[in-house]
């Protein structure tokens, strides 16, 4: 880590892409799916509709049996995907297919053990080979991310790190020195998929986040409607919608994806 400690890694593809897109839009939209939920076919159709509706980038979650940071909606999606036979290999194949078919950047979101078991370097190499641009691994804080960061940097993959409302200014600056692509700012405490108050408190927290990083910022956890995204304009570069799309699909079917995304950005 010594080589990166005081010197930020060079901007990777992802950061450049986000800055370019931001010249065209006030705020970008990142969405999230759990690969293989409810099936890989459905996942593909969800991605297609999301891209078609104008999503700027996407998180593809590789399901894990112990998703500690996820709330009930994504937790159940993880389990259901695994129960219906989702494997890491099938997720790689799926990710390759969507990154071949659609012209937006895709990121992996998963837990550390998936990378650890695959082999950190082999995992990053495979990401590079299939055209995935980076990863978000919520249980790899920088202190435990030595091998992960070496592998990601070696293969020019963005390693997205997380700020939370509990993170001190000093720690935010430390995290910033390791992060590439963008910073994922948790809108609040808790797990994914619960309600969030988009208030002035959050405004000052997001200002603190912006001041502490050289990278673009994304805000997620509880973002579920257009008003939430409008609130974030001028305060962050990317709004992240996660659990809400899964809920929409569960309630209304796969074809509800496109109209839901359009309702967020039009």
């Amino acid at each position, binding site marked *: 880590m010594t080589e990166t400690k005081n010197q930020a890694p060079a901007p990777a593809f992802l950061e450049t892409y986000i800055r370019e897109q931001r010249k065209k839009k006030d705020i970008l939209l990142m969405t999230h799916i759990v690969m293989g939920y409810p099936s890989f076919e459905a996942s593909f159709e969800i991605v297609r509709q999301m891209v078609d509706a104008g999503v700027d980038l996407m998180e593809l979650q590789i399901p894990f049996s112990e998703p500690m940071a996820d709330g009930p909606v994504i937790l159940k999606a993880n389990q259901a995907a695994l129960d219906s036979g989702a494997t890491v290999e099938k997720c790689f194949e799926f990710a390759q297919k969507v990154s071949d078919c659609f012209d937006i950047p895709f990121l992996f979101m998963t837990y550390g053990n998936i990378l650890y078991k695959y082999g950190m370097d082999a995992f990053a190499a495979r990401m590079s080979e299939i055209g995935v641009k980076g990863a978000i691994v919520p249980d790899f804080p920088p202190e435990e991310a030595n091998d992960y960061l070496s592998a990601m940097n070696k293969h020019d993959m963005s390693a997205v790190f997380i700020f939370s409302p509990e993170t001190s200014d000093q720690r935010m600056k430390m995290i910033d020195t390791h992060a590439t692509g963008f910073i994922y700012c948790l809108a609040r405490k808790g*797990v994914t998929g619960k309600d969030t108050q988009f208030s002035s408190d959050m405004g000052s927290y997001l200002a603190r986040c912006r001041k502490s990083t050289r990278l673009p910022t994304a805000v997620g956890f509880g973002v579920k409607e257009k008003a939430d995204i409008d609130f974030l304009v001028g305060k962050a570069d990317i709004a992240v919608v996660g659990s809400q799309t899964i809920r929409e699909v569960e309630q209304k079917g796969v074809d509800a994806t496109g109209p839901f995304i359009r309702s967020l950005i039009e």
Partner: protein
Amino acid sequence: MKHRGYYGPFGGAFLPEILVATFEELNAQFRQAKEDKHFWEEYETLMATYSCRPTPLTYAENLTRHFGGAKIYIKREDLNHTGAHKANNVMGQGLLVKRMGKKRVIAETGAGQHGVATATMAAKFGFDCTIYMGEVDVLRQRPNVFWMEQLGATVVPVTDGTRILKDAINEAFRDWVTNMDTTHYVLGTACGPHPFPEMVSWFQSIIGKEARVQIMKAEGRLPSKVFACVGGGSNAMGLFQGFMDDPVELVGVEAGGKGIASGRHASRLCSEDASFGIAQGYKTYFLQNSDGQMKETHSISAGLDYVGVSPILANMRDQGKARFEYATDTEVVDALKLTMRMEGIIPALESCHAFAGAFKEVANMSTDDIIIINQSGRGDKDIFTVADAIGDPKWKEFICSKAGEYRND
């Protein structure tokens, strides 16, 4: 970059960012307490006056005669208040919670012993208390659920995943990431992110410290071997720490379930089925598939039915400082029956693994040898499971007539 809480390659603190500040505070409080001589004195006084410490070391004369080998002593953690070693850790963490000024505690539980101990501590210290327990365990440990609720705790059955101990841990973490300002998570075993393995082991070290003094007083010499069952590993860490620098063989006994070959077991350290992994905030041997997905485990005892194991024990295994064996469900029930009949002692099914492991070796040892078995808990809670395993017709009759009474209410 500084690493925290590593034991060889095991341990660490794989924390979601939201919990980092909470762990920094916990770590600072724990360091302070550990360096403060008065804290340990306060702890010992509490355990002497509220629990039953020091717990006795019982000479098992009849079992010794029965096997005709080493002299068998039993460390009686079952005589702790709430009936298991769990109280040692829980009361210690309770004192820390008081220092931190938090008002609510949460905990996971498998067998329910840790849940009952936490609910007891919360009642005594005036904390709100929520216990997460896998749905499968709620069913097999109903008496403990009853007591937790009577003690004022809210028991939340966890219906996700494999619905046992590991799933209860995940759910407790999910609560904690939302409520860490008011809440402390009383992790029940020597696992999880740093400083939990060290902290839980420290509180449990009271077992080994006492046992060493007691055996020296009784026999004037050290045991050749000490035996403890290993789920997460806290009672084993507790006993082992008393003999770490001695020429004493430390033997941990894992849950062999239906046998190692069946794949239905919870043996992480003595089977080939586990591999290095990272989950629940720490790195250790996990029972997982080649993708890194955790496997379903099995044991007759809810408390040993866990995919991971203490990083400290994992390192001791790899360094050859402790040996790990297993006992199957059947061997465990046999050991229970024998111990009840011979000594009038009812060990918990978890503890019976240590007894079964010891019984396999004791006859081949010399009569000059001494062993200590850690009876981590008492078996009353297992009445339903044991009655099923034994197939006692009178018990069945009783349950049926009791059910009839309730139905007519």
